[in-house]
């Protein structure tokens, strides 16, 4: 266990070496948050309810999305691509450690740092603009929120890592990742809650893994517990297991196929 803690610690230390790039990355997220805040406050300018959302619920949604994006979508698994292509992955393979535990240690450090920064950003927003926010009064929603959040983290992790493992075969991993990122920004709910979409589109999206990344946990936080959540939760669990199996298969075949060029 100590070794993984050490990796966690070193990943942390690396962030403080590249302060500038990290701060710029957070600045991008912060601008995003401010932009969405202004966008939605102007939409609510002369109406009380838009798409069944009151302003406090919608502002809470975009604040939650900022935090969720940091935890769920913030990732270091993209580095794996470069490690594979450069051959540096051999460093990890040659050591008596579990490759996946190493990745998870780095990932945790990354998520914690991103989470802390997004909290600061949200606090800045709250103190500067004093928006009304909505806190879920039903405490039964909280454990469900945490559960769906964990599922979201797992789904994002498995997809992103599988995409990185493509580099075992080809250097062209950029295109599939680009498609994935585009889909995430469109149908994961990072700009608006997905239930503003027409019902058939929304129901179709619930069959894909994307809504379960950031939208679904945030939705539970805002709308509370209801029986309509059962199916989506089952679907997200199926995706979680399926994507995990796919990731393992891709890994096992990839590592066999690997030729570690450039060494």
């Amino acid at each position, binding site marked *: 266990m100590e070794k993984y803690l050490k990796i966690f610690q070193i990943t942390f230390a690396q962030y403080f070496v590249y302060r500038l790039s990290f701060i710029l990355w957070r600045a991008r997220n912060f601008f995003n948050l401010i932009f969405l805040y202004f966008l939605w406050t102007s939409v609510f300018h002369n109406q009380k309810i838009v798409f069944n959302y009151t302003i406090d619920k919608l502002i809470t949604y975009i604040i939650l999305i900022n935090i969720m994006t940091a935890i769920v979508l913030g990732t270091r698994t993209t580095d794996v691509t470069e490690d594979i292509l450069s051959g540096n992955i051999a460093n990890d393979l040659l050591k008596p450690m579990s490759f996946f535990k190493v990745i998870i240690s780095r990932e945790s450090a990354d998520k914690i740092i991103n989470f802390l920064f997004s909290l600061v950003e949200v606090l800045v927003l709250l103190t500067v603009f004093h928006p009304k926010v909505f806190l879920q009064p039903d405490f039964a929603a909280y454990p469900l929120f945490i559960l769906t959040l964990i599922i979201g983290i797992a789904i994002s992790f498995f997809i992103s890592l599988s995409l990185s493992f493509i580099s075992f075969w080809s250097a062209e991993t950029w295109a599939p990742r680009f498609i994935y990122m585009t889909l995430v920004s469109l149908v994961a709910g990072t700009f608006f809650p997905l239930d503003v979409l027409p019902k058939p589109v929304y129901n179709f999206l619930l069959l894909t893994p994307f809504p379960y990344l950031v939208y679904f946990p945030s939705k539970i936080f805002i709308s509370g517990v209801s029986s309509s959540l059962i199916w989506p939760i089952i679907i997200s669990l199926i995706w979680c297991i399926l994507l995990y199996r796919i990731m393992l298969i891709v890994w096992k075949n990839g590592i066999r196929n690997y030729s*570690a060029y450039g060494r």
Partner: protein
Amino acid sequence: MTKMIKVQNLTKIYRTPIKSGNPLRDFFARQYKQSIALDNISFKIGENELVGLIGPNGAGKTTTMKILSGILYPTGGDIKVLGYTPSDKKPEFLRQIAFVMGQKNQLVWELPATDAFELTRTVYGIDKKHFRQTVDNLCELLNCSSFINQPVKTLSLGQRMRVELINSLIHRPKILFLDEPTIGLDIFAQTTIINFIKEYQERYQSTIILTSHYMQDVQRLAKRVIIINHGRIIFDGQLTRLISKYSQEKTVNIILNHLLPEKFHLPDDIKCQYDFPTLKLNVRKEDIASILAYLLKEIEFNDVTIEDEPIEEVIKKIFTSSQNKESRPK
């Protein structure tokens, strides 16, 4: 002597895409070429041996080391290292080996080497006292106490290579793979590393497999060499045997006092370069005595040296002769 490494009929085939020039075809029906990196090779390496792996670029040296350390899967053959199948990557196996690459960095680029050492300590579960002792020892041997607290990215290549070696040896591996450890280093740094490897092996009795393009490295370190070309072993044995088998000539260098006399005449099959005052002869070993006797009788000189053929020349000869045999279709 216990066998640390047993390799039997090892074959490795790489599949590489070939570009046909037609992008559509390349995309939808990509053609692949099978290239044989290792062709049915077998060898054994015992405890406390230091073996030099020699061969031109692309001969299969690094592929062999990568398979022995478990990074790559073999296409065929039976490999046992310390009783394990390397590609299983069992922690008990990985705990006993180390792989140092001259061209790649294993340390954390942004942080001081000491942080990487500490990580290595926890990865291999070494107790602090042992760890301190090993690091102090190695730092002293390699003379690098002054810069282990600097971020790795600020180190020179020679300094980096030294801390790289320390980092790989903290867990006292039984088998050490060294892939071009002196590549790109100046003569001083090279000597430091080579002396260190020699001393380390004597002190800790580990098995070392080394590749290098500098024949002096191999000559100074390895008693046994394995020569690979085109994925095949073309020589495996003592370096001295290699020289006696393939090097039939010696070079005689003479510094003359006077111009060569008219009547001076050597047998026709002796290659001779004459540029007053030096006279250079390539003489077959069995003829040395008679030639020297003749020289002493016929000419006056103030210096004479007799040298073995440089090892590079010997190896070059072996490669060319194996190339000629190779011309038959595969």
